[in-house]
């Protein structure tokens, strides 16, 4: 009974926080949701431009736009979750004055909002592509959702670790950014892993994102089965980092409540 009651309270808190986050992001400026659409759109347009200037065909399927989209959506899910979870606590500190608001609730609501936003954005672009006469055929929705779930775990874990480190070492933010920006180029957003020579792949193999994006595309494209991605490695890294993030959050959440 007490457990159900606690669950009920936490449900109320998370939904109130999600509403608040949604309003903060999309409510006050009309540009809010437009920006959520514009960002992936800009990536897609730039790469279509580059690829056609190089006179290159799409590596997969028959639409360049869809190929980039299936890479950029998981990437944005990862990087947006990292940045939102990293700043979540510090920008909502005041709300921790309410005893029933736990630091983890803030994280959950931000992740939920990010996931739903990008889910809608993906649907929106698939609908646009459909109207433009591009054939949409999803191989396996489930195989797309598995790497999506892992990306959520990975992004949340890294965000929680960042949030715990930054109060102690403020300069860590720029170090983290410097190291994570190059990831964009080695995560397989605009290429597939079999396009790389084995030596190069060995070099980027450590990056869980390239495995996750390959997996995501294998789920989307009926014609594509990448044998380069390693689901076990991806699961191991994502679950590991997520667990570490939760652990760090536990240890630092007592401090988070002090004013």
């Amino acid at each position, binding site marked *: 009974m007490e457990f159900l009651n606690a669950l009920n*309270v936490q449900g*109320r*808190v998370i*939904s*109130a926080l999600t*509403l*608040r986050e949604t*309003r*903060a992001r999309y409510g006050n400026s009309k540009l809010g949701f437009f920006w959520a659409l514009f960002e992936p759109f800009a990536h897609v347009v730039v790469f279509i431009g580059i690829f056609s200037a190089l006179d290159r065909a799409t590596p997969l399927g028959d639409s360049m736009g869809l190929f980039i989209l299936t890479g950029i959506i998981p990437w944005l899910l990862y990087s947006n979750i990292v940045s939102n979870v990293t700043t979540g606590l510090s920008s*909502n500190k*005041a*709300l*921790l*004055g*309410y*005893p*029933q*608001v736990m630091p983890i609730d803030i994280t959950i609501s931000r992740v939920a909002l990010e996931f739903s936003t990008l889910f809608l954005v993906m649907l929106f672009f698939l609908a646009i592509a459909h109207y433009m006469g591009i054939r949409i055929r999803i191989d396996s929705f489930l195989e797309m959702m598995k790497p999506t779930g892992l990306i959520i775990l990975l992004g949340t874990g890294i965000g929680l670790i960042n949030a715990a480190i930054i109060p102690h070492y403020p300069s860590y933010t720029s170090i983290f950014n410097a190291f994570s920006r190059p990831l964009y180029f080695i995560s397989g957003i605009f290429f597939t892993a079999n396009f790389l020579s084995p030596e190069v792949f060995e070099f980027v193999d450590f990056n869980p994102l390239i495995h996750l994006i390959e997996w995501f595309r294998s789920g989307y494209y009926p014609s594509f089965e990448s044998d380069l991605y390693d689901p076990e490695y991806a699961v191991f890294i994502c679950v590991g980092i997520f667990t570490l993030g939760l652990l760090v959050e536990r240890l630092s959440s*007592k401090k988070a*409540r*002090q*004013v």
Partner: protein
Amino acid sequence: MIEFRNVNKAYDMANGQNIVLKNVNFKFPERKNIGVLGVNGAGKSTLLRLIAGSEYPDSGRIIRKGRYSWPLGFTGSFHPSLTGIENLRFACRIYNADIKYVTEYVKDFSEIGDYIYEPIKTYSSGMRSRLAFALSMAIDFEVYLVDEIMGVGDQGFQKKCKDAFAAKRENSSIIMVSHSMATIKEYSDVAILLTGDNLEIHDDVEQAIELYSAFTTAST
């Protein structure tokens, strides 16, 4: 019902630690209005935040049954970049209160007018506490935790607060922190003295105030 079991609480300061509570076992009297006395920095506000659950003890347990308010004070739990009305809705959602009723009540009670649609960071501290006070009156609590808030606003507003509390007496009680001995005397049935690392209860408020005054003069 609120009970402290082996509670320890200290703050790290530039030179050493400031101990607020050390191995405190304490049962707060039920259904009594309690005034908390203590010198500056003894941890009165921290005590309220521990009771509310806004802050956790370093060790030990705090057992709490019933509906306790968040600590009502100048700083409050309001999010500075959200408007008054957004903060109000947030509180209603997490306390499961009726948004429409609370909005009407707060608009009427707080007297902050159209400022309710502005971000909290544009408020004066007086407006902030009036909003906090009105909101807490609209959401029913069994125990109100009040941190130096009784002197808010003009005399008319103070009278309104007093009347609102009087009407709540039936079902609610107060635990309050104040520098004003007159306020403590007026609202409290018993007094708790923060002695530096422990809690001392006094059934006679006057006597507690005397002890406290002796304590403050001795320490200055």
